[in-house]
């Protein structure tokens, strides 16, 4: 049974009294085993949502409930146990002198025992493909490697929701794929709730649900297939659609009747094969 893990109720936020509203009356809920992708142009309010979830910011209007608790100054430390966050720039989130120290840092703060700590360090570094770098100093790592360690550090504290705020933006394509596979396996196995804030369309395709932000408001909320069928409108708000959707449109233009909006090459090829068999 799924339960609501995160709930935004009519949330509005701005950085100062003279500033424009960054979020305007935003409401949504995320289940405890769900993968939700939040997309939107730069400045659409996506990252502000992430910062509100773990109490780095507090809304001026509305309320935010995480795991049954309202996010306030008093509950923020409990909330942060539930929420693991990985940001875009790995250089801003390193504290340890070695990779394993860094992964241990979050656990030390939570009083995890040494035995468990060692086990989790090995487990999470392996999950992100960094097990050979346990004793490496962070500054010797490339940007992508640092980010994988940052993800391991967050996974080590077993949060109930993992937020990746454009966390793969600095990785190379295979690094990205690897991270997304790792994260999706983890989400499957542990019933983790996952929020990916991203521009990468492949990350959106894998999600259960997509929330599209535009100028501080929820522009649309639907399964990826439904979102990608709105190509023209997405482009108007500064977003892009995957290559496969562009190709599907070109095929329709060329007189091929595509039966459904394809999410990946396999779906499109299967569709074409069916047509081919009929002729």
């Amino acid at each position, binding site marked *: 049974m799924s339960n609501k893990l995160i709930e935004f109720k009519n949330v509005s936020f701005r950085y100062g009294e003279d500033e424009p509203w960054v979020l305007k009356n935003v409401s949504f809920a995320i289940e405890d085993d769900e993968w939700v992708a939040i997309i939107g142009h730069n400045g659409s309010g996506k990252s502000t949502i992430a910062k509100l979830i773990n109490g780095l910011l507090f809304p001026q209007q509305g309320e935010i409930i995480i795991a049954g608790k309202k996010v306030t100054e008093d509950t923020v430390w409990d909330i942060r146990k539930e929420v693991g966050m990985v940001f875009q720039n790995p250089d801003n989130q390193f504290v340890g002198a070695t990779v394993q120290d860094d992964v241990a840092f979050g656990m030390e703060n939570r009083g995890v025992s040494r035995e468990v700590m060692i086990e989790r360090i090995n487990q999470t570094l392996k999950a992100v493909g960094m097990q050979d770098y346990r004793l490496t100093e962070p500054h010797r790592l490339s940007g992508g490697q640092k980010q994988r360690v940052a993800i391991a550090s967050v996974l080590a504290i077993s949060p109930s929701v993992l937020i990746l705020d*454009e966390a793969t*933006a600095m990785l190379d394509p295979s690094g990205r794929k690897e991270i997304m596979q790792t994260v999706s396996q983890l989400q499957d196995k542990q019933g983790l709730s996952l929020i990916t804030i991203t521009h990468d369309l492949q990350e959106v395709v894998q999600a259960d649900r997509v929330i599209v932000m535009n100028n501080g408001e929820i522009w649309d909320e639907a399964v990826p297939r439904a979102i990608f069928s709105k190509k023209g409108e997405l482009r108007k708000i500064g977003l*892009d659609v995957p290559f496969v959707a562009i190709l599907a449109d*070109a095929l329709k233009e060329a007189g091929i009747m595509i039966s459904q909006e394809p999410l990946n090459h396999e779906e499109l090829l299967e569709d074409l094969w069916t047509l081919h068999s009929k002729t």
Partner: protein
Amino acid sequence: MDITFENVTYIYQHNTPFEHKALENLSFHIESGSFVAVVGHTGSGKSTLISHLNGLSIPTKGKVRIGDYSLSKEHKPGDMKELRSRVGVVFQYPEHQLFEETVEKDIAFGPENFGVSEREIKKRIQEVIPAVGLPESMLERSPFDLSGGQMRRVAIAGVLAVKPDVLVLDEPTAGLDPRGQKEIMDMFYRLHKEQGLTTILVTHSMEDALKYADHVMILNKGTKYLEGKPEDVFIQKEALNQVQLDVPEIVQFLISFEQKFKTAIPYQKQSVEEIARQVQRVVIGDELL
């Protein structure tokens, strides 16, 4: 400016237990005025390569030539200033380097350091501001009040104001939204054409390399792995997969298509529309037309 690497090896912390070979016996030639994409897996040596282009790193072995400049262990020019004024590097996340009170002062910082006169700087600012797509009204504002995309444009304007002949771009679109990515890349492409720059783009995006570059170099473990025209390099799926790279999506689709339909549609940089027509011919056949 022509750029030539002759058997360049670069070793970090040479002669220590921590030594690490980042480039190994790397040779290549970049012709003046070309647009070259350098692609490689994380840790393949791309950033080390860049740091040789304006003398931030000197080869441990071998020689780098940039125009009339020659850099080697034996021959280090005493003054790198002129070289650095001719090779503009836009590092990753260049907006992190902004520091001045106003956009105007920040853009002026580079040329001031290279001894450009105040009058000339004013003139250049008038040129670079529209070139990077910023309104002139922004000059008096603090760069820290701008959006991420605007800050990046300010930082790029600072590099352009030095009037380099060679523009080196290290992942210039990282972290921007799709529209911002396209705008920035189109801007660099326009500058490349209009000003006859030699442009070196370090990127993870096969799509961008395919779209903008006329020459591609794939690095792996500090050596040159593949080199050639994008449309020739990017169809070599197995070779690219071996070094953890993927072919561009359009090529991947054609490969999967061939596997399923046993009919090849060769990739020749044709448009998506053209591919759709070719697919149509295979799937439905000509008789229905």
